[in-house]
């Protein structure tokens, strides 16, 4: 306000009582209560949330609560190998006598790491490119989208397989490969979303008041893209864990003694069916974790995506 004087109708505040937090944020509070209400109503969403919370707790404190924490770092006990589940070994033991329960629980942390890194890299790269492609248009969009389509034209797992095969097996390469094939999904999502938001009047309105492009991207487009991104990220946490486990199963993922579930199944599958517990529990752990993230994402979609909202 340098060049122009204040408007003459600058009436003093009639009510000087400062508003309480509750009053100021009544809108948000109502919104969150509505979300919570809708979420609670759905059994599957709550199931998903519980599974995810359980998973996060295990990832946080797993090593502290398991009976044989050394099992995760490759301790062997050949005299106790391939024991069926019992009160000593809740999930039985593996071919080296390590406690499967301990390994499965501690594996949560590995999986969390895998999920967060893959989803994180993919989301950061994908959102950035997507928002630029969608907003800028022209040749920038053409280039970004061509490359994206190229990646999307090859099923991710096949491409990741090729990459890991080339880079060599191992969890880092596996995570890297999956991150490389994962970002295009975000580009497409964010680009489409940006394209539609770009047409909204409030973007034109922001331009008409002289907002620069970064401002518009950050304050207007990104917040409005967030709902589907959050939903996708929640689901992708699960899918990334699943894909890493799949590569682990083929023998290209995490390597022993790292307690990664997919790698455990990869070994355990040769012990089917007589030592069923060996593959059952890591498999169930993957299944429940991925299920949890997907149910959560699905529940989030229901409450965040106005299309499926009733009121």
């Amino acid at each position, binding site marked *: 306000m340098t060049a122009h004087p204040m408007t003459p109708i600058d009436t003093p505040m009639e009510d000087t009582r400062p508003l309480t937090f509750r009053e100021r944020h009544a809108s948000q509070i109502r919104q969150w209560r509505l979300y919570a209400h809708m979420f609670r109503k759905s*059994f599957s969403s709550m199931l998903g949330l519980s599974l995810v919370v359980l998973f996060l707790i295990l990832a946080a404190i797993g090593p502290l609560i398991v009976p044989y924490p050394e099992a995760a770092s490759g301790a062997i006990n050949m005299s106790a190998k391939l024991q069926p589940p019992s009160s000593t070994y809740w999930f039985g033991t593996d071919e080296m006598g390590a406690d499967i329960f301990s390994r499965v629980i501690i594996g949560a942390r590995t999986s969390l790491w895998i999920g967060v890194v893959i989803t994180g890299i993919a989301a950061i790269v994908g959102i950035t490119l997507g928002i630029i492609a969608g907003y800028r248009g022209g040749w920038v969009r053409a280039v970004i989208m061509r490359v994206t389509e190229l990646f999307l034209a*090859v099923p991710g797992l*096949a491409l990741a*397989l*090729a990459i890991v*095969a080339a880079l060599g097996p191992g969890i880092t390469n596996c995570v890297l490969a999956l991150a490389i094939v994962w970002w295009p999904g975000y580009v497409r999502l964010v680009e489409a979303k940006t394209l539609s938001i770009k047409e909204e009047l409030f973007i034109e309105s922001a331009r008409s008041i002289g907002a620069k492009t970064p401002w518009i991207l950050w304050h207007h487009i990104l917040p409005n893209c967030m709902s589907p991104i959050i939903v996708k990220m929640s689901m992708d946490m699960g899918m990334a864990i699943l894909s890493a486990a799949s590569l682990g199963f083929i023998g290209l993922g995490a390597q022993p003694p790292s307690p990664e579930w997919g790698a455990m199944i990869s070994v355990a599958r040769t012990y089917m069916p007589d030592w069923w517990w060996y593959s059952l529990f890591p*498999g169930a752990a993957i299944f429940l974790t991925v*299920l949890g993230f997907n149910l959560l994402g699905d529940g989030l979609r229901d409450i965040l995506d106005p299309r499926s909202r009733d009121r």
Partner: protein
Amino acid sequence: MLTFAFRKLLTLVGTMIGIAALTFLITNVAPGDPARLVAGPNATEDMVATIRTEYGLDKSLPEQFIVYMGELVRGDLGTSIVTTRPVLEEVMRYAPATLELVFVAMFLGIVIGVPLGMLSAVYKDGPLDQVTRIFSISGVAIPAFWFGILLQLLFSVDLEWLPVSGRLPLVTRPPEFVTGLLLVDSLIAGNFSTFWTSLQHIILPAIVLSFPCLASILRVNRAEMIEVLQSDYIVAARAHGISSFRIIALYALKNAMLPTLAMIGLRFGWMLGSTVLVETVFDWPGIGLYAVSSALSSDFKPVVGVTLMIGFFFIVANTLVDLAYAWIDPRLRKA
């Protein structure tokens, strides 16, 4: 129309070349030396060098790339160093098995996914909806390899209802080659027992492969049905006295099928990618298995070839979806 087809074709060729370049570069940055593998464990350096020269592996990477792209333009996918056969020939041999599996899986996915999606949309938030929701998300969440092994154990080992793996029993000679799809070929040949056994063989891998696909078809169909059922023209149809069944099964379904079709196209490609897992578990001699075994022996020409092939099928599938779109949606017919 002709220019449209031409443009489509041009994009297809461009994408294929792009995929080839992408995969070739990705697979060749690594230090792997397939020549050493095929030369055998005791081979001397000069023997390995013989093989390198034979396959052009002694050239620099850019040179190899140029040679490869040159061959590719002429429709040559190169030669597998492990099997010494042209990749194209091998991929063509394995492709029917994969396609057969994917078609059956897709068929299962559609015939189960679409009606279930419809039902859970109609009974939204009811018990059926909750059950199908957990069922469908389980489908996406379940590790295919694990699920496959469980099914094998249950149906093949325990119950002995279905064969463990493969496409046909050992002594059964495959029917005369027409399409390469055993189910079709055996019917053409009128050989029912072969048809039946190949159906028995395909059912488990197809179920495993279709499960995630079924799930997402179900989800999309449900979501779209819900949206369509709330749309104005459905309200209008109700107001005009058209029966609920007709509204749901004809009017709404046709509208909801559009995004479902897109999902089917997408899932088709995804399925092709997943064959690397399912074919490994079930010993299904398709391109997925071929890709895995080649990748594990650092034999990259086949990996690139399979990736290209999958990309090709994927693009073809999506083009078909586009056509189906135009067929269903009159608004797209004139552009």
